[in-house]
Structures are given as C-alpha cells and as structure tokens.
C-alpha cells in the first residue's frame, strides 16, 4: 500500500513540479503587471491633487533636500544689518558736491552723512576748501627756501662742517617728503575710506532693499527657518519645484477679463542645472489662443531662472484659472 502511495505521489510530483514552478512564476509576473498597467493610459488617473499653496521667497536658495521650514521665510543672517535709511537721504546731497573741492573729486560719490568728516554735506561747501588748500601751500614754499641753502653753504664752509648742511637739507627734505607722504597717505586713506564707505553703504542699501522686499511677502512666520513644510532633508533652502512654481507664476500675467470658460493647458519644460530653459512643449493646449499666448509670454520671461537648480530637471506644469475664477 505504502509503496503504491509513494509511487503515486512521485508520479504526481513528476507531473506537477515543473509546471508548478512555471505557474508560480507566471502568477508573480501577473501580479507585478498590475502596478505597471496602472501607469499606462489604460487606467485614467484622477487629476493630481492641488498642492498646498505657499509663496516661495525667490531669494532663498534652491536645494535638493530642503529642511523642514517655511518656503516664504527670509534668509535669517541679513536681518541684523539694518541700514535702510542712508540710501534715500544721502542721494540728494551727493550731486552738488563735485564743485567746491578740486583735489578731491574722487571721494565725491561718498553717500553717507555721518562718517566721512572731511566732506560735509551740501550746506558747508565753502569752509572746506580753506583748510584743505592751506596744506598744499606750505608744502610748495618749502622747496624754495630749501634749494638756495645748499648752494651758498658749500662755498663758505668747505669741508669740516658736513654735519650741518646734511642735517638741514636732510631735515627739510625729510620733512618735505614726510609731509608729502603723509598728505598723500592721508588723501589716499581718505579716498579709500570714502570709497569703502560708499561701497558699504551701497551694500547696506541693497541688503535693506532685499530685506524690505522679502519681508513684503506677508507671512506670519518669517522667523521660521528657510525650508519646505514637508521638508525632510537637512539643507536650508527651498525645493526646486516650489521655486519654479513661484517663479513662473510671477511671470504670468492674465486678466480675469480675458478669461472665457475655464481654460487649462499643460506644458513640459526642461531646465538645465544653470536654471536655463532648454526647451518647452505644450503637452495640451487650452484651445483658447489668448490664454495659450499668455503662457508663452510667461515661459519666455522664465527662460532664465534667478537661481541655478541642483540638477537639470523636467517639469510638467498645468496652468489653469481655478483660483482666480473662484474669487471673482
């Protein structure tokens, strides 16, 4: 009995085993086919869910793995530098200056009121030339008295008194050159100071403007670190997707009085790592030529992003007016 059972089992096995393995393989294949099929056009997908609306501060760096934070937050470091006021005030005072002081035309672009003492603002252009000019005057007369001295001296006093003539001209020449050198140094220092100050001021003004601009973006949480709300990385910055979305949206102008129906178009854009648009293509036109043309304008204006991307990227952008028409 047993042997016959064994025989039967062996028979069964010999019949099933090769086929069973194949069947198993086919079964696994078929199961894996399901997710693949899911991505084919055979299964139309629901439209992508609307991403959360956030304003991205376009000053922020684009990073690959943004940290958790707010995309609209302003970069933190620049905040303490608060010199927003010097910019508007000094400007009017700058232009009238070039007239009074001949030796110092270069330091003129000095913008700041407070620090560079030698150059007072508008109201006192006259007193300055006086203190300045006297300096060069004493310099010139000195060489004149100096020169005659060495000439008469060698005649009456032949050799022994070498020490006197030497020290005298040495002193005068040294004085002269020292004075000149000092003057030069002072002037150079002044110029440099003024230049530096001007540069600093420009920088400060630019920074202030940048800060002012970034703080224009209304957000209750500008103190938050720069990042993405769903960021899981460790880099301070915003994601390329959020950045590109904000950048292109800013370039797009379209009036609700142009709108007819609810147009929607899909565009494929390919940016390289420098943030330059290499090519774009309409995957779906809206059928409303006015709408499509406004998109072409927006894309043309977005040919160069204001910041490089972490890598070359392709974006599929769906343009529609859902948010605008809701409000009207």
């Amino acid at each position, binding site marked *: 009995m047993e042997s016959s059972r064994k025989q039967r089992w062996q028979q069964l096995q010999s019949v099933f085993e090769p086929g069973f393995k194949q069947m198993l393989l086919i079964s*696994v294949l078929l199961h894996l086919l399901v997710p693949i099929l899911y991505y084919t056009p055979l299964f139309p997908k629901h439209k992508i869910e609307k991403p959360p609306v956030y304003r991205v501060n376009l000053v922020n760096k684009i990073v690959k793995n943004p940290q958790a934070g707010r995309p609209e937050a302003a970069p933190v470091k620049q905040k303490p530098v608060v010199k927003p006021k010097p910019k508007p005030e000094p400007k009017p005072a700058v232009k009238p200056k070039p007239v009074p002081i001949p030796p110092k035309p270069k330091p003129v672009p000095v913008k700041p009121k407070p620090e560079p003492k030698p150059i007072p603002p508008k109201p006192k252009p006259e007193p300055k030339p006086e203190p300045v000019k006297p300096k060069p005057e004493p310099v010139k007369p000195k060489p004149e008295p100096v020169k005659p001295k060495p000439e008469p001296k060698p005649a009456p006093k032949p050799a022994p008194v070498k020490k006197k003539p030497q020290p005298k001209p040495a002193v005068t020449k040294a004085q002269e050159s020292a004075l000149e050198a000092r003057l030069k140094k002072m002037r150079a220092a002044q110029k440099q100071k003024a230049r530096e100050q001007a540069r600093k001021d420009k920088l400060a003004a630019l920074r202030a403007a940048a800060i002012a601009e970034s703080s224009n973006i209304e957000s209750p949480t500008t103190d938050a670190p720069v990042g993405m709300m769903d960021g899981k990385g460790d880099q301070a910055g915003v994601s390329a997707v959020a950045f590109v979305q904000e950048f*292109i949206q800013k370039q797009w*102008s379209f*009036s609700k009085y142009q709108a007819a129906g609810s147009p929607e178009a899909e565009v494929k854009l390919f940016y390289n790592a420098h943030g330059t648009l290499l090519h774009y293509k309409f995957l779906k036109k809206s059928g409303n030529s006015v709408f499509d043309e406004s998109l072409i304008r927006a894309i043309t204006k977005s040919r160069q992003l204001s910041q490089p991307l972490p890598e070359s990227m392709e974006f599929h952008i769906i343009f529609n*007016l859902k948010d605008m028409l809701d409000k009207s």
Partner: protein
Amino acid sequence: MKTFKIGVLLIIILCLPFSVAFAARIEISAPGEQTIPLAMTRLLPMGVGAAQPAIATEFQQVLLGDLDLSGLFDMVDPAAFLGDADKLGLRRNDIDFNQWRMLGSEALIKGGYRVTAGKVTIELRLFDVITQRLLTGRRYVGKLTDVRKIAHTFADQILKSLTGEKGPFASKIAYISKRTGYKELYLMDVDGHHPIQMTNHRSIVLNPDFSPTRKELIFTSYSKGNPDLFRKEIYTGRESRLSLKPGLNIGGRYSPDGREIALTLSKDKNSEIYLLGTDGTIHRRLTNHYSIDVDPSWSPKGNKIAFVSDRRGNPNIFIVDIHSLDVTRLTFEGKYNATPAWSPKGDKIAYSRMDNGVFNVFTIREDGTDERQLTFGKGSKEHPRWSPDGRFLIYSNDLGGEKSIWIMRADGTGGRKISARGGNDSHPAWSDRW
C-alpha cells in the same frame, strides 16, 4: 529557478523608469499678475506736416479712458519711459523691445499722426513686448473731429487682439435727458462725449431701445397725448408712430433678430406683454394675468423674455417662454425687483432692487442662482443695460440729487459717471456695435 530569477529581475528593471524618470508636476492655478502691463507712448508727428500736439493729447486721453475702463491693463508710468518712446519706429525691427521689457511692460502701443489738407491720418501698432510680435496695426484716415472716434475704434481693436473679442467703445448710448426742461431723447459716445439731441417733442420721452439691425431707435413719447411707441431713423431723422393703442405703449424692446418688438400694452385696461411686428401689428400676447406685467427684456436667443410682474404681491422678475407661454419666477429675495436686462451672452440677467428706499443693481443667472449685488452705497441705481459684448453695464444713478448715466464693468467694479451735469439723465440704452 534561473528563469524565475531572470523574470523577477526583468520586472524590477521594467518598473524602474516609472519611479525615477518622473517629471515634477506642478499646477499653477492663477496668474501672478492679474493685469497686463501695457505701455502706451504718445502719438508722434509723422512726415512733413506740422506737429499738432492737441491731436496726440486728445487721442491719448480717449484711449487711456477706454483701456482703463476695460480693467485689463496696468499702465506703465510714462515718466519711466526710455529713449524708444521718442522714436517713431512703427516697424518691429525699429523698436528696442528690451527697453520696454525692462520697464516690465508686456504690450506696447505706438503710433504716429499726420495732418494734411484738413485730414488726419493716424497709424497705430500694438506689439507683444515679450515675443516681440506685432499683434495688430491700423491706419485710420478721418477729419480732425474724428480723433475721438479713431481712439475708440482702436481701443476696440486692442481688446480684440488681447481677449479675442472686440470692445464696445466705438458704439453709442441713447438716454433721456431733461437738459431742455423736457424729457428728450439724446445720443452720446460711450465715454459721454458728443451728446446729440435726437427728439424735440417738448413732452415726455421714455425707454429708448436700439434696433439690432438698423440705425434706428424706438421709444415712447407722450407728444400726441397718449404714451405711444415711436420709431426714429438716426441718420435721416425720420420719425413715425409704431404703436398707438389706447393706454400704455411702453417699454418697447427689439428682439435679437430685429423682427419683432416686445412691449407693454394696456389697451384692455390691464398692462400685459405683447409681441409686435415692425409694422406695428400685434403678433402675440405673451402674458395674461390680472396683475401688472411690464418691462420685457429678450434673451439673446430670442426664445424667452424676462419681465416684471406683481402677480405674487411685490414686483418681481419673471421669465416667459414665448413659444409655450410658460411663466417661471426668477427673483424671490427683496421686495421690489424691476427693470430686468438680459445679458447679450445669455448667462446673466441684471436688474435693480429697492432696499430701504434705494435701488441697487444686481445680477442673477437664468436659473435663479448666483444672485449678486453689484452696486452699493448712496444713490439709486436704476435701469441697468448691457454693453453689446456683455463686458459693461450702464445705469442711471441719482447720487448728488441729480440723475446721471454711469458705467461699470459687469462685475460691478470701475463704476464712473459719464454724462455731464445738469441733464437729469436716465433710461440709458447701449447700441449694438456701430
């Protein structure tokens, strides 16, 4: 087993592209700028003719007014213009588009004028600054007095090229004015200029309406003692009585095809809505109710008419199907709803509602949904009528103690007075494109 492993590997390889080469998807659901930045340069003299800056000034003022009313544009401040604004380059290659782009402008209007032998020639171009294309260009020749008309016509053209639909600025508005002491019919431009007195009945003239097919107006006048319906040809001035039934012959409105007139007659002692042929014969009676039925307004398809009736107590808007004569009630809110005007696009019906003794303009959809109040504040706003493209509404407003004609966008923004003071102007009606 080998085949199994290879199979699994194959599947993994097949699946890879789906996970890796997935382009980032972005949805942008509203533009960043909801106006089009437009730069408009002053007209420059072309050729040898003497410069007449008054022409450029007048043209600019009219065109700016129209473009501002459209609500489409954000005008670039002319103070910021750079060198290109002073050059009369009308060809694409002559224009330094980068200058304009630097100013943030997306569209650019340039033009020149020439006056020879009492005739003015105005050349105009609209450019797309971003794609550096010519969008539209026109050359107009006319009398010196035509400068305003040329500006309105080009404004229409600008709207056509930027929205796909022509503007209504070169059309006319009819209205009733009491400038002479009597209520007479007047005609004016869309910006209120060139008012022309059309009637001299020395009586009471009311309810003007334009024929959609001819340069012709209908209105009601008491000049023969009874409120009769008149017809007047605008250019010849010829006038005739169209309907002189005993009692009221009021509120006449041409059908969209111009073949029939809907109006209120009270020949049977009760005011009802009738359809009249253009020869004055009665085609059909549309309402039959003991209450008052007045103020008909055609749907643009010509198959329905909105009207006012107090058959449910208070005056409300109803709609009657002119074939089946089925009547449906449109408005339920408010105690006094009157003077419906069906939009030429067919999507909305404008009307005025009285609350606390003050009328305001509202719109509602044909199915009674989406009721919106467009005007607010002091002053009774009555008799709304649509522009032929449905972009604007005109109405009378008694703000300041005297009625005058006002215009606003169809969403209630940009309201402004267009008729001059001292006329007690009311009952506006907007012509079709002229």
